[in-house]
């Protein structure tokens, strides 16, 4: 028997729900989409059944530019979940998308200590095990 241990996951991979499925399906093509409330004309993130502003259900999916700025950042030194990422410090950020919604994400592509509030960032994609991708961000241009 030559069974070997499964590779240690770098991520706890997100499980799509019925509501979030369109978001995850788009990531297969490295497209970032956002749910919008048609009545409020406001973006909604994370995906929901109802608009958190007006509780209306007239929602639709629209493409996002993938551009944004860092609203807040912390450099995580000691991951709480030991199976996540590496032992190296990494940047956890709230990125404010051009559309106005904020996403919690990682900013990669530069030393974590170089990530600053107000920094312009663009989306970059990290492959997941099933063909989906996780949207991360990197310094723009």
């Amino acid at each position, binding site marked *: 028997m030559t069974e070997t241990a499964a590779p240690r996951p770098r991520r706890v991979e997100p499980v799509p729900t019925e509501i979030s499925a369109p978001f995850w399906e788009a990531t297969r093509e490295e497209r970032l989409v956002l749910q919008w409330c048609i009545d409020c004309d406001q973006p909604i*993130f*994370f995906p929901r059944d109802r608009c*958190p502003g007006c509780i209306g259900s007239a929602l639709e999916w629209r493409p996002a530019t993938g551009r944004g700025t860092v*609203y*807040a950042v*912390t*450099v*995580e*030194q*000691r991951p709480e979940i030991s199976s996540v990422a590496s032992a190296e410090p990494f940047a*956890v950020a*709230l990125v404010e998308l051009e559309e106005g919604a*904020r*996403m*919690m994400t990682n900013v990669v592509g530069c030393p974590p200590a170089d990530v*600053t*509030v*107000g920094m312009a960032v663009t989306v970059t994609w990290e492959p997941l095990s099933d063909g989906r991708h996780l949207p991360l961000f990197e310094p723009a241009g």
Partner: protein
Amino acid sequence: MAVYGTTPEQLASIAVSTRQWASMNPRARFRELLTIDDVVSSPMQSTPLHLLDCCLVTDGAGAFVMTSAERARQLRQPPAYVLGAATCHDHNVISAMPDLTTTPGLVSGERAFKMAGIKPDDVDVLEGYDSFTITALLHLEDLGFCAKGEGGPFVADGRTAPGGQLPMNTNGGGLSYTHPGMYGMFLIVEAVRQLRGSSADRQVEGAEVAVAHGCGGMLSCTSTLVLGTEATL
């Protein structure tokens, strides 16, 4: 920090002052005095919070008895009276928090103080949930003890320490006394003890009005409780 220039040393001063209170509480988990340097040189957890900016993980339990004011007057212990109370719930996840520097305490604090007919200057003791040093600083600002953004200078000179203008977390807080997760109970217990005059070495002389201010979720939900002695009725 990015908006108001709050410094790691200012945050650390909350841990230092809180530890001073803990040094007078025989039940506190940590009682040795700290310096600012001890805090900022302790291992970084997640910037800008060091180990000593973070609350403890302990076991613990507490309880209080709530009854009518009429009945309470006939009991053996001097009662603390509820002068005002309010709760406000805002976002769920932190990415949906409208402004990371403002908690729902802005609303629950104002409503509870209004119900009690008090102003921040009237508060003799503040028990404010301190999951991290920054949490306590946000409470000070949102409850109106200082203006938004001025919490750093406000705490930097030991104003919340023993002998300071605003005794805060007089049991040693979540930072030094205990933190079993549901810390709100300990806020209330200590506020009542201070009003009863049963806080022994850490008793704030002449405490008549105490505020217990809890915060749950991801800075999502706050409850503000204003308690007073018989003299405040």
